[in-house]
């Protein structure tokens, strides 16, 4: 570590950014799936599931992600449920994001006019077909902006997973600074550069996706 120069920081940060990217993208994916399923279940008012999902969404929305992570990483092993820090971060972020995604997708579903559902019924579409061909595409298209915001939020939230020892960007930055205080400035620059390298293309891709998806919106 002693002879490390500014230049040697680049591979370290590249690897850390890779970790952030992997954890972020997998939790966005899982969060989306959780949100979609939970949103549809809420929409159909499935008897037992509805209060459970409601409790889940409100619980995760109204507690700090930091403490959720501590609870799952340090608390659950006491009742013999143990995860490594990668899995644990993905679990925390997926559940957290799932709660937000559920909210977004549910409001997208509620915005669908009732006569469409009646029409689908009149045309003899089964519930599965109605869901797959009518509800899901439209709800995604109306809530895509919120979904994108949540994805960015989750990507940023990966940095809070530093506390459960996930070797992501902020974790590495502080590991280096604690050994070499003279590298503070380059480390700070590299931290911000790595975040920009992830977030700028991501925001671009997401807004591109938003335009593509909303292109087919009914009556737009």
């Amino acid at each position, binding site marked *: 570590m002693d002879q490390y120069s500014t230049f040697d920081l680049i591979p370290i940060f590249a690897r850390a950014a890779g970790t952030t990217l992997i954890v972020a993208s997998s939790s966005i994916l899982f969060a989306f799936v959780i949100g979609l399923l939970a949103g549809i279940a809420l929409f159909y008012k499935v008897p037992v599931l509805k209060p459970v999902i409601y409790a889940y969404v409100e619980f995760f929305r109204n507690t700090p992600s930091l403490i959720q992570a501590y609870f799952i990483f340090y608390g659950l092993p006491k009742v013999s449920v143990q995860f490594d820090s990668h899995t644990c971060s993905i679990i925390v972020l997926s559940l957290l994001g799932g709660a937000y995604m559920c909210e977004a997708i549910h409001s997208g579903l509620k915005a669908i006019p009732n006569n469409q559902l009646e029409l689908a019924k009149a045309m003899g579409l089964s519930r599965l077909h109605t869901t797959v061909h009518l509800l899901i595409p439209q709800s995604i298209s109306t809530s895509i902006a919120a979904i994108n915001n949540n994805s960015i939020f989750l990507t940023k939230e990966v940095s809070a997973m530093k506390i459960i020892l996930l070797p992501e960007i902020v974790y590495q930055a502080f590991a280096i600074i604690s050994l070499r205080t003279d590298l503070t400035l380059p480390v*700070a620059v590299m931290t911000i550069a790595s975040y920009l390298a992830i977030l700028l293309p991501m925001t671009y891709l997401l807004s591109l996706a938003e335009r593509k998806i909303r292109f087919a919106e009914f009556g737009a």
Partner: protein
Amino acid sequence: MRNLGLDFIATAFPRLLDGFVIAVQIAGVSFLLSIAFGFVLGVLMTLKNRWLSVVLRVCLEAFRLIHPVIWLFILFYGLAYAFDTPTNGYTISIIVFTLWGSFEIGDLVRGYLTSLPRHQFESSMAVGLTRRQMYVHVLLPQIIIRTLPSVVNLATRLIKTTSLVSLIGVQEMLKVSQSIIQVAYYNNPTSMISFTMYLVLLIFYFIICFPLSLLARYMEKKAASLTTGT
């Protein structure tokens, strides 16, 4: 029962409450300050000055794209490193949350101000209101009604984010509970305290934040019915 460490939590409960008070102080002070600064920033963002709006836009995006935990660390260690003086975690967290909240509220206010129909500005001018009167009597009441739900939402986000300040050594609830956990382990290595303690904390935060988010939702409905037909 002993293994759950509930007795430790009960004994240390006053200390937890102290931590709670600190968290509420940080959230409360920065919340009030961000409302004050946020309205000013929001009005500044609508002005037609190109440089000002570019600078404010960059600051807003910086606070949006960079997680508060990074800002806390940058200011906490950065200021100490740059000026060679020890920094106070409590002050730094208030500064960070105030800046963050001000830009968030500023953007809400800007968004609403720009969405107001032009005739409101013109009508106020036509009835002979001065610029100040227009802002105070015409625009401000509408902005308050419309932005209140999001502002309450911001309050819950601020309260949730205060758990981060434990990372820069402020003795709030999370930090206190970590020391409770350490003491409990020291006395009883097989204790399950980290399970119960964090669960208690989660419930604690939930009890504070859940009513606030219900309030925000109620206000949203109310505001929508109060200001129909912008």
